[in-house]
């Protein structure tokens, strides 16, 4: 899983002025004919920089994303849920490994990326800055946050950079279990005892706002990313992704007799687009810049894990000789 709403810098295309024109044309032509870029190919430094940033954010989201659901690993009810949740959270860590590896092919070593994460220099998906108060919260995350991630990932798998596409193919194959598992859990709660039904409805109420933030600010207030769309780094707009998610999952939520805490949410049968109350984008910006309920904890935990593991890594690094990975 991961989250959309990548934070892209306003892509300063002035940097392209200094690039070799012929090489740039050949590079763009390759992308235009849907041929993947591989690590050994020439690429403009803006492409390299933005890709590293995007893949890094995705990887960060996976490793931080392991924490909200991880909250309930030791308390999962029954064998089936216990083993499934362990496997799911393990997959998030596995996805982080695949994604950091893909970013490494662009020249940034993994430890540097993890260091940047801990120092707050690089970002991760905002949704993981919220707390998983109950077992039901964990199930809603497993279902809806993964659903959102899949919408993004399926689109991004068609992007231009080979290693990222390969990582996403593996990730998407594993995600199908995540989605089914999450949905299975929510169905059981929604059809269960009054205590269970209440728990899941309240969890949904808490997580709906963050889910509406998940794909990032609306297109009309987003930074300019035309060059990234042209280079197939960004594959769909935030609003497109959000509409896709609503189309696929609102009916599924409603069919469980759960209510979504937005009375304005409905599909306009004429435009075929979903209408909803405008999410609070100021809250989004506050949280992504550090002022959310769990930001401090998430980073403190990651820092602690790295610090406690330092002696292990040091013991393994004796005589280590690193080169950039190949694919």
């Amino acid at each position, binding site marked *: 899983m991961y989250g959309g709403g990548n934070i892209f810098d306003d892509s300063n295309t002035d940097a392209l002025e200094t690039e070799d024109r012929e090489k740039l044309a050949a590079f763009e032509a390759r992308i235009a004919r849907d041929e993947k870029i591989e690590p050994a190919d020439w690429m403009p430094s803006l492409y390299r920089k933005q890709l590293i940033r995007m893949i890094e954010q995705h990887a960060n989201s996976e*490793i931080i994303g*392991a*924490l909200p659901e*991880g909250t*309930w*690993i*030791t*308390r*999962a*009810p*029954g*064998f089936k*849920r*216990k*083993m499934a949740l*362990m*496997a799911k*959270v*393990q997959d*998030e*860590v*596995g996805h*982080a*490994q695949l994604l*950091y590896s893909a970013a490494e092919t662009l020249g940034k070593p993994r430890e540097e990326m993890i260091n940047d994460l801990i120092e707050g220099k690089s970002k991760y998906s905002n949704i993981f800055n919220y707390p998983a108060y109950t*077992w039901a919260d964990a199930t809603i995350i497993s279902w809806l946050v993964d659903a959102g991630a899949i919408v993004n990932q399926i689109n991004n798998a068609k992007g231009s950079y080979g290693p990222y596409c390969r990582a996403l193919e593996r990730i998407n194959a594993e995600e199908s279990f995540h989605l089914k598992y999450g949905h299975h*859990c929510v169905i*059981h*709660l929604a059809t*269960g*005892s009054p*205590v*269970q039904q209440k728990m899941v409805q309240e969890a949904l109420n808490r997580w709906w706002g963050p889910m509406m933030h998940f794909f990032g600010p609306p297109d009309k207030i987003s930074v300019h990313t035309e060059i990234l769309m042209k280079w197939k780094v960004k594959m769909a707009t935030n609003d497109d992704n959000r509409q896709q998610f609503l189309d696929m999952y609102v009916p599924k939520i409603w069919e469980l007799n759960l209510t979504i805490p937005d009375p304005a949410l409905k599909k306009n049968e004429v435009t075929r687009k979903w209408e909803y109350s405008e999410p609070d984008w100021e809250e989004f910006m506050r949280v992504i810049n550090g002022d959310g309920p769990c930001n401090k904890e998430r980073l403190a*935990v990651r820092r602690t*894990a790295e610090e*406690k*593991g*330092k*002696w*292990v*890594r*040091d*013991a*393994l690094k*004796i005589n280590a000789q690193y080169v950039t990975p190949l694919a």
Partner: protein
Amino acid sequence: MRNEAIKELLYKMADDLLILGHRNSEWTGLGPILEEDIAFSSMAQDKIGQSLAFYQLLQQMGEQEPDITAFMRAAENFHNCQFVELPTGEYDFSLMRHFLFDHADYIRFAKLSGSASIEISQRAKKFTGEIKYHVMHANSWINKLGSGTEESIKRMQMSLEEALPFALGIFEPSPFESILTEEKIFCGEKILQEMWQEDVINVLSKTELKKPDFAKVKPFFGGRSGNHTHHLQPLLNEMSEVFKLDPSAEW
């Protein structure tokens, strides 16, 4: 009596695997290296899956269904050794416990593969590959850290010394040892311990860690008869917190 003996054996194996799997799952997302985080979590899932297989066999023998057996008993009714209920500590302790416990289970399963009880031998054979991998993994890590930096060697040595008395508690004799050996259900804890000591020394002697003098280590017994440390009940409370909101519910 034969049935009693078999049930006791199954309970202690299943309880060991459940509690250790649970402890090891505490590392998921918090491990020292991504790849190792992933591997450790897989092995924790294996352990829990193995415990489930033995609880299911117990259910066939008239015990409760696995979720109830695992999530509703109080600490004094658990038969795991005290070793597995100890907190995870730092990674050195968890790895050392993984090494010591998994070597014992490797031999235990190998021996049980020839058990006169078909149900037990079938399951033991089935899990041979899994426990083989667990031992492979443990040996790799002991080799690397046991001869790594000054700090890694010091930590692993301390963990080894802390773990040994508890590890010997794995082999606490059962009241049914003679029935199990006579009926050829199991070779018994004594033989298991002897073989385990040899294996452990074999691996450790290739590192800079000191070879343990087992004769001088006083074992911590009690777990097999329900006498546990103060760590087990809180572990069980945590494990069953959601389940107990409604034990009859479908989660």
